[in-house]
């Protein structure tokens, strides 16, 4: 039995909007999990159902072996940082943070020490005695985060906890907060639409789209072995290049025919027999390849450069290729102009093959999914 278990949970708003569809998630104690998805994918609804601000339309949620989905929020033992900060305006930041401990009947000195500790963690020590209306959005957000982290709750829910912070501070706080949560053995669920944040903080990431869980896995597995085309294209920056392809197996060679007569031609030995059989069944497939794996090398297929952007630490080259656009990333400056012809090479180990009809992954780098 997992620590937090979400079992076939549905959320339907007003009998019409199906925001969360048959969600199953099992999270272990001490784990940090990110719910990742675009706006309206159901991640915040999920978080609010765990907190108790939204009722589950059907399904169960249990925390630490106890069913909690019928309990009022105050009795679930959950702490939460809200996306809109939600600080209480008549109180100073210090009082707001200490307010979260009201229910625990601690000595004043203990409360003061813990407020100092979390305030130091999120860098708001200097402004503790100011009121929410007199500090910036980023500072309010950090106070809201501190108010959640100060509690020793069974579960910490963080809704876009760093959305308003400047990049340097965000990077600093990610490290500190992860350490803070680890050190105390806390369990946390983080809602974000920022993959970097999810990758940096979470042990596992649940990718959601349209209210459905797409994949729940470690950051590395999401990148290397996406379960379907959605996860494949959603995770990774810049996004994965995808092309519809027709496989052609002619004994010793395996070719993927792309649009406009382009064809990726490989030695069939690079692909296991089971995969070749699967491809021979003739269903349409979609090929995916990460921009980092698209190399510009002699003897490759021809592409025509459409844009060449140097981002300060890497170059994004987008080029017209096989009727679509392919993006290649390299870490040096490239002396290429619009209209130049470049040879594109893709190694068989970098190919992700998806079923075109269902979007499900068939193979990653020659290994069946």
């Amino acid at each position: 039995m997992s620590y937090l278990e979400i079992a076939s949970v549905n959320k339907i708003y007003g009998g019409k909007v199906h925001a969360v569809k048959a969600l199953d998630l099992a999270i272990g104690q001490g784990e940090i999990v990110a719910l990742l998805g675009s706006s309206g994918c159901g991640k915040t609804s999920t978080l609010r159902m765990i907190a108790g601000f939204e009722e589950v339309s059907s399904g169960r949620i249990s925390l630490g072996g106890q069913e909690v989905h019928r309990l009022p929020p105050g009795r679930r033992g959950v702490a939460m940082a809200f996306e809109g900060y939600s600080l209480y305006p008549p109180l100073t930041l210090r009082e707001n943070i200490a307010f979260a401990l009201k229910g625990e009947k601690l000595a004043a000195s203990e409360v003061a020490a813990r407020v100092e500790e979390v305030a130091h963690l999120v860098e708001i020590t200097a402004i503790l005695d100011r009121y929410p209306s007199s500090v910036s959005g980023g500072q309010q957000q950090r106070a809201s985060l501190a108010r959640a982290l100060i509690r020793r709750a069974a579960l910490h829910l963080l809704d876009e906890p760093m959305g308003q912070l400047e990049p340097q501070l965000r990077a600093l706080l990610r490290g500190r907060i992860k350490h803070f949560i680890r050190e105390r053995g806390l369990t946390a669920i983080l809602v974000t639409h920022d993959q970097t944040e999810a990758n940096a903080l979470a042990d596992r990431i649940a990718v959601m789209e349209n209210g459905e869980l797409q994949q729940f896995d470690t950051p590395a597995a999401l990148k290397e072995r996406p379960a379907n085309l959605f996860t494949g294209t959603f995770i990774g920056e810049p996004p994965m290049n995808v092309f519809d392809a027709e496989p052609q197996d002619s004994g010793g060679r395996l070719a993927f025919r792309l649009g406009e007569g382009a064809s990726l031609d490989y030695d069939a030995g690079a692909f296991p027999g089971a995969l070749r059989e699967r491809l021979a069944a003739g269903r349409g497939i979609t090929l995916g390849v990460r921009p980092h794996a698209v190399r510009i090398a002699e003897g490759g297929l021809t592409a025509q450069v459409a844009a060449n952007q140097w981002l300060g630490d890497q170059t994004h080259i987008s080029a017209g290729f096989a009727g679509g656009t392919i993006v290649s990333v390299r870490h040096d400056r490239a002396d290429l102009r619009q209209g130049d012809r470049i040879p594109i090479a893709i190694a068989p180990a970098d190919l992700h093959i998806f079923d075109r009809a269902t979007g499900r992954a068939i193979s990653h780098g020659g290994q069946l999914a």
Partner: protein
Amino acid sequence: MTHQSPLERLLRGLALVLVVCFFIFPILWIVLMSFQTNETILRSPPSVVFRPTVSNYAAIISGHLDSNVASMGIEFMRNLMNSVILSAGSVALSLVLGVPAAYAFARHKFRGSEDIAFTLLSFRFAPPLLVLLPLTLYFQQIGLADTYLGLIWVYQLICLPLILWIVRGYFEDISPDIEHAYRIAGHSWFSTFCRISLPLAGPGIAAAALLAFIFAWNNFVFALVLASADKQPVTVGALAFVTASGIQYGQIAAAVVLSILPVLALALYAQRYLVEGLSLGAVKG
């Protein structure tokens, strides 16, 4: 603030003075009248030069109305007391009923909630006299006619919709997550309502209560029909000054001044709440 030339400032000041004079004039005239005898009030042409007298106030407070023909007793101070009881009582009842209702309408969307809220507002649309006739008959049957309780009940038609709609707008302005943040720290719904929502909506509630008080205070027709002499508020009580021997303008003026004083004091005290409450609550509600 943009820069203004001295001329602009002068014109602006002049315009303000004109507006203030226009609105304050009736009140000023009444105050002047209250210090005059009937003879000086009625002389033609009228003049602002007169020998002030406090006899009007003395007559009203002592309850003896002396005209040049006869002497009669009036109970204006009792009317004033009735006004206080009726207005304060009905506002208090409206707050007890209206504030939790406003919270429910603001926070919980349930089937028919908008319809119920609108129905409550529609009390304000009905012409009072149309409601009063059947109400009088009912009140006489169930023994509520001519009681403070019955009057306070009817005054809910004035106070409740006002408080409900202004306070509702105020509750809607408070982010629900502020309440959630308190609830998740282990507090019940009710303590969240008392500790978080009520204090945050405080200015709006104060403004709504003040407005309701003023409307209740100024009500005439409900009390005229439903209350007998000993329950009448000042608005109805002022009719006693229209006597067989003429209209006692000086005493009416003094009575008017006395009856606006409590509301004026209250309004001045709560002025900033009033403006803030109206602009924040009612507009969005």
